[in-house]
């Protein structure tokens, strides 16, 4: 199944079809990342803890680095503030993400990485190796 109609109920709740839940391997307590596009489309994507050294982990770390550049993060000025934040996320049903997520697409990431590697190789080729210097 890849299409379904779901009804919005009281307290803004919807029920996801059981087939969707099982096909995505979801269970109660899992997080879903909600994105609303400019064309009023709502996309839900599983946002669970990922395994290190996987493409998904790389995508998340890239997005986090982009958020650092864009200053889209929460900052705590004391251990108590951080503690309150941890309590909040431990009990939350909704965690607000930056409004305009700058998450790079995988294709763009590969392209950017390729450009960086090529630039590094070209820079290295331009330099005379130390052993040949006079």
């Amino acid at each position, binding site marked *: 199944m890849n299409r379904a109609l779901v009804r919005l109920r009281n307290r803004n709740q919807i029920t996801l079809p059981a087939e969707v839940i099982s096909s995505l391997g979801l269970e109660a307590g899992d997080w879903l990342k909600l994105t609303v596009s400019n064309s009023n489309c709502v996309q839900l994507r599983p946002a669970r*803890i990922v*395994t*290190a050294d996987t493409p998904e982990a790389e995508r998340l*770390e890239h997005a*986090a*680095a982009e958020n650092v550049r864009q200053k889209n993060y929460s900052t705590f000025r004391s251990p108590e503030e951080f503690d309150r934040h941890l309590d909040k996320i*431990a009990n939350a049903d909704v965690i*607000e993400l930056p409004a305009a997520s700058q998450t790079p697409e995988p294709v763009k990431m590969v392209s950017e990485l390729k450009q960086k590697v090529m630039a590094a190789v070209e820079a290295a080729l331009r330099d005379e190796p130390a052993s040949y210097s006079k």
Partner: protein
Amino acid sequence: MKRLLSSDPEGFDGPCGELLQRLYSRKQEIKTRLHQIEGNLLDGNLEGTKEHNRWTGNRCVPLVDDYVVVFSVEESSEGGELTRHVYLLAVELEKKRH
């Protein structure tokens, strides 16, 4: 020195919230460990951390079980005051290496 701690909403807050909810009985243990990590990193103590991604320069530190916290540290000087800014970027499950 000015010390700042920040967390990424998607990479850190979401997964950390999930971990705190899933391991609810160990919530205090996880929070204590996070405060220990916070203190060490803000003090500039990287003992027990390791390189996580050599392309980005990100490092990681064990949280609980096989979970790690991925972070980066930025030091800058504005107006003569040194600022150490620690960014908690992600909580990830580390693969077991045998």
